[in-house]
């Protein structure tokens, strides 16, 4: 699978995961896929692959897909840090990072390092390999 095809598959897996746990009856789910009418907003300088929120806002979800090659670039580190920083300021933030399975451990380390810097109180992180069915935590009632 090419990098772009893999990226696309990972973005779709995030969408499936998000739509499962954050129903469209309450949430607006935006993606940066080709042909999307409404793109996710730019957050601290970066546009995520997936963005979901409800109104009035009780939870915000940011989803980002990274191929193995992408994950360890400086750009990705900055991007992940920017998204986590934004989510840390929310009442209830969820970060979904989708990577191919061989990169799961690396992804976890990168996220842990960034979280340590931020000490976020309200961020939940889901690291997915695109197949895993682990659910993202829903908004707190």
């Amino acid at each position, binding site marked *: 699978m090419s990098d772009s095809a893999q990226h696309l598959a990972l973005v779709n897996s995030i969408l499936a995961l998000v739509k499962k746990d954050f129903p469209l009856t309450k949430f607006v789910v935006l993606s940066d896929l080709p042909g999307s009418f409404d793109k996710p907003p730019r957050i601290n300088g970066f546009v995520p692959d997936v963005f979901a929120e409800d109104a009035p806002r009780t939870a915000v979800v940011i989803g980002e897909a990274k191929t193995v090659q992408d994950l360890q670039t400086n750009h990705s580190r900055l991007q992940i840090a920017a998204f986590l920083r934004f989510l840390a*300021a929310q009442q209830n933030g969820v970060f979904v990072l989708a990577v191919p399975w061989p990169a799961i451990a690396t992804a976890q380390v990168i996220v842990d390092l960034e979280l340590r810097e931020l000490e976020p109180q309200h961020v939940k992180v889901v690291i997915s390999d695109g197949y895993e069915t682990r659910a993202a935590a829903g908004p707190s009632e």
Partner: protein
Amino acid sequence: MTWDLLIDCGKTTIGMSVITERTHNASTSWRRDWEATRLFLYKTFLDEKRAGNWSTIPALVYEHGMSDLQMDAIRLQVHLVGTRAWDPYSKAKYLHSLHIEKQMPMSTLTEYCGGRQKEVTEFINAFTDMEKYYRPIVPEGAFDTSRFSGFVELQKPGVKEAILESKHDLTEFSTWIHEQKLFPLNTVRLLPRILRNAKATEIFLKHGARKAAEVLERPGVSKALSEANIGQLAAALSQAIYDLPWHEARKIKKDPGGEVAQSLHEVLDALEDLLQIGEAG
């Protein structure tokens, strides 16, 4: 004057339409205040013998069985995304009422609004914030719905976060709006940069965002630059980007929260707004 006399199916010479529903006794009920307002105005004009034909209102009469949902759908399409759009505050109030009070699913709401998902959530969130933080601080009768756009700007990522990070809150934001410290309302976008700069914050709290922005702007904008038109500036910016040395481009990319990157994002936002207006027009 009875309701029936005012209904004249198919008449469109005045270029208006109203949503009505024929009830079981063949009279026509006016289901919502908006239609009733138009009826009231027509009756007033008729009573006052104003010039023009005020005895009929062109109407499309729906036979019974029209559900509230169908009526809401028509109203959304006409007044939210149609050619006769309401003012932004009224749109937001209606969206809020449909989603929160009537519990219309978000997916249905956005579908009726032509897929404008971001706009729908922004409007509902802006309405919620305005009611929660602005209404309590303004004297009765001084609630200014034209300030609503400021609360829409507040929903852009980074604005609320910057306010809270700088130890201010949304009640203070509402006071800034009320006292016109954030005027014009698009200066709300500058808040993250202002609040990160001590000098700019001090000026902002005393004199407002416009004055504070002067501190943020780079000194020494040449006469030629300030006199250039938008086309010339666009061409110059494109050229400057093409000519940007690799290491400088890398520096900007590495620091997306930095001054240059933020200024570029502001330009990008302004361009997107401008080009959307072009499309709509």
